[in-house]
């Protein structure tokens, strides 16, 4: 059952092309999408997933969404709180531990979208409004991570205004383009409802999988190019990048069950908890915690955890969700 689930994920076109992208980077082909296309595809994917999520909220009603959304925020807040001391145990400097903890508490939209795609491929129903959890989980961990890092720097004698740093981090965390776009698309979907969905589904729904496939080809090359960072990251961070997603996936799927989500919804919340941010968190850390080494956190999030989640993690989280639901694993 587990092997079947993994095979089903690995054989989706999106994941196959992701692997192709990684290979392209490792053997150093010159394959590279132009940067404006990369930006266009991310906007498309975020708008499509956010808009559909907003329509779904308008159908399900806000009453159904707020509890799991709160659980999602709690997860995003709590993950850095135990990741940080664990990373300190691995002898990482305090600022690096704080930065990496923020990356792992925050989320990866592409990992989430790949999970949505996987569930729809294997016909496992899930709540479309889970896109709202993606939107609310991006920021809390970034704030916690910046706080942890700044407090550590103050203990080491660095001076500076904590309030000013937090203000800058808040701006970056809440108004980064992915959160802004996602929240905007959720709202647009919520307001336009089923009619808006029918009017745009030819563009946002039907070609979705093809666009995701093309995007994951590019993401494969992006991740593949950063595999060289593994040597600098070291064995501890490699283990952290593989084990923490499993732990967070397990906790996330369990929390989803407590919040009353379906099996597919639990798998999505588990995927969010397991994923690590490689866009919003790095940007916020460079501005608010520039003392942290960006190579360490980006290698862990983008070269270790992201490929793991896209290939093996997502089907594992679905199995965890089934386990929590009392299904046979």
């Amino acid at each position, binding site marked *: 059952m587990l092997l079947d689930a993994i095979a089903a994920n690995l054989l989706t076109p999106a994941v196959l092309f992701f692997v192709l992208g990684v290979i392209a980077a490792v053997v150093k082909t010159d394959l590279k999408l132009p*940067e404006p296309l*990369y930006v266009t595809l991310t906007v498309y994917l975020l708008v499509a997933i956010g808009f559909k999520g907003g329509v779904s909220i308008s159908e399900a009603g806000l009453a159904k969404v707020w509890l799991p959304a709160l659980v999602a925020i709690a997860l995003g807040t709590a993950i850095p709180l135990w990741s940080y001391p664990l990373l300190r145990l691995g002898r990482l400097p305090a600022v690096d531990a704080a930065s990496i903890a923020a990356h792992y508490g925050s989320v990866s939209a592409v990992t989430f979208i790949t999970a949505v795609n996987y569930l729809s491929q294997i016909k496992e129903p899930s709540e479309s409004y889970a896109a709202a959890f993606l939107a609310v989980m991006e920021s809390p961990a970034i704030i916690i991570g910046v706080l942890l890092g700044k407090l550590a720097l103050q203990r080491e004698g660095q001076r500076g205004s904590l309030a000013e740093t937090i203000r800058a981090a808040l701006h970056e965390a809440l108004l980064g383009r992915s959160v802004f776009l996602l929240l905007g698309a959720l709202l647009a979907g919520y307001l336009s409802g089923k009619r808006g969905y029918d009017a745009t589904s030819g563009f946002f729904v039907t070609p979705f999988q093809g666009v995701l496939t093309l995007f994951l080809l590019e993401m494969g090359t992006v991740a593949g*190019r950063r595999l060289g960072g593994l040597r600098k990251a070291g064995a501890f961070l490699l283990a952290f990048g593989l084990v923490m997603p499993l732990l967070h996936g397990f906790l996330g799927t369990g929390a989803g069950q407590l919040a009353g989500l379906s099996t597919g919804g639990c798998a999505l919340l588990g995927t969010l908890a397991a994923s690590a941010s490689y*866009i919003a968190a*790095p940007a916020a850390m*460079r501005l608010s915690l520039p*003392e942290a080494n960006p190579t360490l956190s980006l290698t862990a999030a983008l070269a270790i955890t992201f490929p793991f989640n896209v290939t093996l993690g997502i089907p594992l989280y679905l199995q965890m969700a089934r386990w929590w639901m009392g299904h046979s694993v």
Partner: protein
Amino acid sequence: MTLHPMKLVTIVTEAHAREPLLRLLTEVGAHGYTLQLVEGSGSQGDRTADMPESANIDLKVIVSPETAERLMTRLHEGFFARYAMVAYESDVRVLRPGKF
């Protein structure tokens, strides 16, 4: 036609430094800039520019010699330790010096 001596300051740095850098330009009194995304490699690794976040920015600004001095000093004090960055100034001559 009279050409007036000015300084061209070129700053190549990681894209994440964009906002603080643009704020600094305003603070030191620059009146404009030109910016593009570029890729490159240096002592702090490769900047692949596959994602806009992993690109470098190449920022050019023409200012008076005094402003250039202030700008370079501020870069030295507040930016070099924080960001992967190269900054240099060169002599240029312009028409319409009031523009800068």
